[in-house]
């Protein structure tokens, strides 16, 4: 899938000389930035005891036994680095193959350099993670170093500075365009980090190891069951992403609470979001904005990215409703219909997404708006917010994909397509929110009226969203009627 999508994005025509020069200049800087992100992710994971997830019995029997912990943990650490590097190498090979389609240099050379960079980047991420987890160097120092290196890469990419350390390693996948021996020093440093990380991993915190063991076991089971809500909750616990003790939206939730208790409750929940979740939703909304811009400029497949960004952001925004689903005893204690309560809980997530996407549109438009983009943005902000929340609502209100007994009883020929449909339907609903952009882009290309076209096609996501919101309201009644009809 990834290969097909990437191939479609990149195309098959050879780049011109000018374009090749651009790739030669900016390619290493982008590659350096990717490496920086991996370092940050690794350092953050390591600061919480990751990325190792041991068996509970290993933690209890081996890590508490009178054995050097480094010896116990060395093998799984090397295994993790090896597995990660192999995966990185595979992705690098794929990227190399795609480059070779359009840039002269030969398939073998691009694939080999892609493999080296992919493996190096993965080893760097794991190395940073193990160094942070080992506590030999304080985890916060590792996170700060990763952030500084990433910051330098961003500065290099935006031409604020002429050179960044990670951009040097980023030249590796572009070696067929010009060999840079200095990047080998970077590879040696990465190997040094990985070796040091594995050697010092004995300093791993037992508390972190125990917490991860419990959560990762549950996480694997939830993934097996394709239970997205459980996966999200466990991932948040793994990342220590807990609600804050202060409600930042108290000034809104308190006055609104007495008259609109569900809106007040939703705002109180959003007001306790940890900073990392606020940043994540903000970044996803901005990402959706830039992806829509790319759609507007003609890269139609980016609608998938835009839709997925709003879908993931909506899964965060819909937390107040998800809390109700997680606590059926509390819901059943209220003298209200479940569906009515759930439907009212959709108001706050829509407001959250509207706010995020309006800000995102402002950012994207401020960076240079194509003609009539503001009108299309105004329509899309509304449809994308509604469709994003509708997609998340389908995911959260519906049962875990494999949990229903029906699935277990069905023949595989029926259960398989049903599972695929239930997995794909929620993101597809979210993606439908960006249909007005595609319609407007086609109208612009054909010289038709842009605003009217966008407005007309906004009916599709609006109808889908209203349908989903009605399903949330009347789901119980529908189930009861169906069960009655089937004589259950």
């Amino acid at each position: 899938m990834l290969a097909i999508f990437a191939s479609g994005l990149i195309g098959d025509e050879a780049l011109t000389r000018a374009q090749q020069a651009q790739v030669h200049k900016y390619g290493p800087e982008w590659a350096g930035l990717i490496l920086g992100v991996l370092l940050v992710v690794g350092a953050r994971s390591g600061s919480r005891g990751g990325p190792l997830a041991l068996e509970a019995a290993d933690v209890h029997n081996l890590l508490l036994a009178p054995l050097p912990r480094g010896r116990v943990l060395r093998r799984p650490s090397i295994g993790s680095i090896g597995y990660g590097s192999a995966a990185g190498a595979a992705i690098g090979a794929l990227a190399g193959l795609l480059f070779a389609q359009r840039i002269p240099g030969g398939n073998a050379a691009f694939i080999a350099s892609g493999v080296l960079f992919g493996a190096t980047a993965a080893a760097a991420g794991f190395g940073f993670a193990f160094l942070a987890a080992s506590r030999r160097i304080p985890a916060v120092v590792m996170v700060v170093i990763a952030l500084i290196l990433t910051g330098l890469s961003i500065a290099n990419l935006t031409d604020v500075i002429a050179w960044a350390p990670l951009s040097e390693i980023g030249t590796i996948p572009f070696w067929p365009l010009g060999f840079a021996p200095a990047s080998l020093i970077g590879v040696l440093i990465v190997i040094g980090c990985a070796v040091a990380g594995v050697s010092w991993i004995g300093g791993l915190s037992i508390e972190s190891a125990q917490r991860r063991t419990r959560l990762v076991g549950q996480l694997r089971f939830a993934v097996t069951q394709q239970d997205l809500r459980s996966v999200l909750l466990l991932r948040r616990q793994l990342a220590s992403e807990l609600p804050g003790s202060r409600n930042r939206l108290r000034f809104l939730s308190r006055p609104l609470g007495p008259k609109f208790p569900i809106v007040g409750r939703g705002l109180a929940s959003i007001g306790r979001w940890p900073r990392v979740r606020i940043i994540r939703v903000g970044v996803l909304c901005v990402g959706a904005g830039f992806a829509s811009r790319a759609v507007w400029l003609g890269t139609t497949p980016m609608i998938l990215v835009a839709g997925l960004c709003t879908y993931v952001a909506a899964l965060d925004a819909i937390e107040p409703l998800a809390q109700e689903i997680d606590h059926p005893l509390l819901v059943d204690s209220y003298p209200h219909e479940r569906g009515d309560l759930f439907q009212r809980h959709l108001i706050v997530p829509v407001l959250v997404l509207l706010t995020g996407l309006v800000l995102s549109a402002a950012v994207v438009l401020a960076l240079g708006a194509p003609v009539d983009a503001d009108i299309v943005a105004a329509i899309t902000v509304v449809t994308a917010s509604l469709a994003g929340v509708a997609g998340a609502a389908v995911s959260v209100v519906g049962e875990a994909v494999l949990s229903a007994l029906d699935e277990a009883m069905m023949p595989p020929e029926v259960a398989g397509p049903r599972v695929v449909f239930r997995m794909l339907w929620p993101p597809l609903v979210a993606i439908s929110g960006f249909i007005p952009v595609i319609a407007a882009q086609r109208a612009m290309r054909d010289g038709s009226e842009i605003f009217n076209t966008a407005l007309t096609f906004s009916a599709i996501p609006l109808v889908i969203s209203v349908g989903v919101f009605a399903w949330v309201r009347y789901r119980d009644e529908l189930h009861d009627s169906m069960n009655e009809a089937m004589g259950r």
Partner: protein
Amino acid sequence: MNDVAIRTVDLTKTYGDVDALGPIDLEIHEGESVVLIGHNGSGKSTLLNLLAGTLEPSDGMARIFGSDPDSIHVRQRRSWLPDNPVLYDDLSLREHLEFTIRMHGGSGDESIIDELIERLGLSGREEDLPSQFSRGLRQKSAAAVALVRPFFLLLVDEPFVGLDATGRLAFLDLLEEARDGGATLVVATHDPEVIDRFDRGLVLDNGSLIFDGPAVDVRPYLSGSVLS
């Protein structure tokens, strides 16, 4: 005699081939305070969950104030405190109490919130997240949530587990006040010291109701000598 608050007829619950409860025939009248005792696995929690509408009977029926236990009419009048505290992850204690009281139609006087917080020894913790509390504090928080809303029937399962002495006494006083206010109480417990505070006692053994009489007479059953 007051109206019937709870009526069960042949109420039965089975899990596969295991008979968890029943058949139970029972009538509890409005204003009665009932203590429910029995060994672990005797069916106390099953009975309370059936009355709370969180379990569906395998056979027979239960009616609360003449209606289905899961009906909105009953939800308005029944409060349920399960043995395992159920609290949102993303609301503070005060927000829990405010939300609960508002979901039951109250939007005016919320002074009961401060009173409950103080009496249950939760002062100073009202802005914290109960999901991150210790077991005892979570139990107190759940008790506050159960008591903050208006109710005519209170079902309580093992309320004293994890409570400190102050919290236990405060909760017992609050139960007595609820009874004096006319509410019907059904409390499952293993605690022999609280038996005298109730009017009527029910004893379950292996899913069967083996005693129904004055609360003071259930003491011999607590020792285990009478139970199978």
